[in-house]
């Protein structure tokens, strides 16, 4: 395992998330330095210089997003941490919320200072229980200790942090829907323009960043942008938290330097495929990224440039390992059922398209598929590519076309023979 860690830098224990232990590790010293010695512009510059990309799935450079906020424009600005973590396969923000909540709090106060934000929010999916309790306790501790509230650390900087809990909707992980949810209304995503950094929460300039992206702020400001850039690759500096699951021996959250060899990660660090099976495929970064075969990932490194060149993306870092013997037709069915359930229904291609995709795959799995179904799945995916209000339509299209591209023969077999070539297996209990 690569030794460079920026986030998972301490052993997790029953108390490692508390303020006491966080301070022992140097916590809140950076906040102090920022408030006493740096200007908001200096913080912004450091973030921009670091080149850090968003770790929620879209990989948008954080400095560029922050740069749209006009300091001293006389209007309220808002900061929201995206803790919705709804992308299936992803559970790495959960690690931060449960084990390093103060890292997030400190990072957010620094960000709030840099962006002139008086009121910050953490939007957390409603299903999170322990993450909520840990973060809520940390926020209380931070208020007590004077790191949040009026006149932080005796300066004239004030910041309030509210945890806003969702109530069950994947679409709330989309930044504009997230803000509409915080507004207490039904969370439809919004068309752009305007960008959220121009008109966001209650039509005010708002920055929405992923939890992991934000959590890197303390380190970047403490050690400087160059130290951050020394890790990872030129285009994608730093580390990534990868949450790996599926047919893998040692599932969990791992921190890797960007550029780490993929095969090494799977076979050495994570113990290889369960049950001694062969690797069939890997979904690199959440089910909305295109699946890659075992052969394709073999020479690759965990670096978005390489993965994109291979036709996929590291996305949200939610890696799912699939062993030989898994029926990809049934797997796609699980995914399309998900997208159909989660479509908000606002725009035509997604609302009608998700239902259509789902009905087709259900028919195929039930043994009633038709030869034209494969083309139809591709066509509906194409109709959703880049033409919907938010990226969910595209995502379903990537999942569908990705699996069809690599495993078309399984679908053809299923349609011709009215059954799965692999007995409909998803679980792969017995060894091959």
């Amino acid at each position: 395992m690569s030794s460079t860690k920026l986030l998972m830098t301490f052993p997790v224990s029953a108390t490692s998330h508390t303020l006491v232990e966080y301070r022992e590790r140097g916590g809140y010293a950076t906040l102090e330095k920022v408030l006493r010695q740096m200007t908001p512009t200096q913080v912004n510059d450091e973030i921009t210089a670091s080149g850090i990309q968003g770790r929620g799935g879209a990989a948008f450079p954080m400095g560029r997003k922050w740069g749209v906020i006009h300091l001293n424009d006389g209007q309220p600005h808002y900061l929201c941490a995206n803790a919705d973590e709804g992308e299936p396969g992803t559970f790495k923000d959960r690690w931060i919320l449960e084990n390093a909540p103060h890292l997030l709090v400190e990072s957010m106060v620094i960000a709030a200072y840099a962006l002139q934000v008086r009121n910050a929010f953490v939007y957390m999916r409603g299903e999170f229980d322990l993450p909520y309790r840990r973060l809520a306790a940390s926020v209380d501790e931070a208020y007590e200790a004077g790191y949040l509230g009026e006149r932080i650390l005796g300066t004239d900087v004030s910041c309030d942090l509210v945890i806003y809990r969702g109530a069950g909707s994947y679409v709330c992980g989309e930044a504009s829907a997230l803000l509409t949810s915080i507004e207490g209304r039904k969370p439809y995503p919004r068309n752009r323009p305007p960008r959220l950094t121009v008109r966001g929460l209650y039509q005010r300039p708002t920055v929405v960043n992923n939890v992991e992206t934000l959590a890197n702020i303390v380190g970047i400001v403490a050690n400087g942008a160059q130290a951050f850039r020394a890790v990872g690759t030129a285009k994608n500096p730093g580390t990534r938290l990868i949450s790996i699951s599926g047919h893998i021996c040692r599932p969990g959250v791992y921190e890797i330097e960007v550029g780490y060899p993929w095969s090494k990660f799977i076979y050495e660090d994570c113990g290889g495929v369960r049950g001694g099976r062969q690797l069939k495929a890997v979904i690199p970064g959440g089910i909305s990224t295109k699946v890659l075969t075992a052969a394709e990932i073999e020479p690759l490194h965990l670096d978005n440039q390489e993965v994109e060149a291979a036709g996929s993306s590291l996305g949200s870092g939610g890696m799912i390992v699939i062993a030989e013997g898994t029926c990809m037709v049934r797997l796609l069915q699980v995914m399309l059922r998900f997208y159909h359930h989660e479509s908000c229904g606002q725009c035509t291609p997604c609302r009608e398209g998700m239902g259509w995709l789902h009905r087709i795959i259900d028919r195929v799995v039930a043994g009633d598929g038709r030869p034209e179904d494969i083309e139809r799945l591709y066509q509906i995916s194409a109709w959703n590519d880049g033409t919907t209000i938010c990226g969910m339509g595209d995502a379903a299209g990537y999942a569908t076309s990705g699996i069809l591209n690599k495993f078309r023969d399984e679908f053809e077999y299923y349609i011709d023979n009215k059954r799965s070539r692999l007995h409909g297996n998803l679980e792969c209990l017995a060894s091959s």
Partner: protein
Amino acid sequence: MPRIFINGQPIDAEPQHTVMEAARANGVVIPYFCWHPQLSIAGNCRICAIQIEDRSWVEIACNMPVSEGLRVLTDSDQVKAYRKSIMQLMTLNHPVDCGICDKAGECTLQDYHYLYNGSPSLSRDVKVRSTKFHPLSERIVLDNERCILCSRCVRFTREISKSNALGIIQRGDASLVRAAEDRPLDADPYSDNVIDICPVGALLSRSFLYKSRVWYLQPTPSICPGCARGCTVNIWHRKAEWKLNALDPAKNVRIERVTPLENPSVNGPWICNKGRDLVQIFERPRAEHAMQKGGLVDLEAAIRSARRLIDEAAHPVALVSNWGSNEELAAFRQALGARFTTLVKQDWAVQPGERIEDDLLIRADKNPNTLAARALFPIADDGGALDGATDLVLVWGEGFDFERVPRGAVIIVLNAYVQPENGHADVFIPVSIQTERRGHYTNFQGTVSAFEPCFPKKPSIADAEALFAALAIPEVEPA
């Protein structure tokens, strides 16, 4: 003024416009379902998507700001193919109800199917079923299968009528337009506008349901007399060449429905529900024959009697109708203004339960032509007792309390509708209504609008304009 290029043609656009608005202002047609010039941008139907030159993808035009040098294509092959795909998706679960749907003939989905080369459905799966005949309010019926979830109706109730009556519940393809559960749509006096703006046959008028195919009807421009706003409307009735061969001739001379006639200076594209219900005003029982003290006489005889009574009167008082047209009121003044002490009567007052006034359309004065009447006859009727010396009262129109007539005075009534007082008058002459003639009203802001005749007038009924001139001719006793 940013210069943009649409299909290669240069256009000088307003700086705050979207490409959709710039295109429309310059005669370029971009299709749309959810966009509406008076409502906020929803951007959900996606059919307005166009292509910026040199880009390989399409983007919606309704939310695309104009910028200097922007070059767009609204009819490229890619745009055409995309429109076809949106039509395919929109009709995926749309029921093939055209044969029984009131919207046929004025349905945007039908029109675009033809215009944009819609094809039969590629789906081999059953359509999503949903509620049909859902009573959204007492007046409006909703078919959720036909609904394309454009949200125009929802935005109307939030942004224009501000009743917040409608919303979309649930999600995905199970989404449903619904009224809030405390039934605020029934209390929204502008509710029926959502029927007009619904691009498909999802929202329909219950009073018009199944009455007629729209292509058998013609719209005649008119003015709603319900208040001093004077919204211009279309009154729909059967085309002469499509008359019904029914035993009851009344079926061919009735008002089938009323819709707004768009008018930027008065009501925009909206009217209130009272204007939809003009049948309740115009199709009340009509007075059709002249009378003297309740006995039927022919029109000429009645006119002669009236003339004689007017000649003989020492102190005649007239109460003119503020439902009279500009022409009729002018004719009264011309012919009889010198002879009579003339007061302007308030024909209609606010009815119980009726909204009095708001800042959208509705005005407290429930009469169409008060401004013109008061301009010609400065004295308003205060509703009190008439001068004791009055020996003749001429009442034109409705809303008069006959208790106010001094004992012994002669009464002449000119009215269109049946009322018991018609039979008690010394002379009663029936007059025509707005839908039987042309004329003008002046609204409370001084804007003059025109109305056209929809139906023929019966011969036994007089036209007030000509009648006044006739009443002014001195009656010459036959030698």
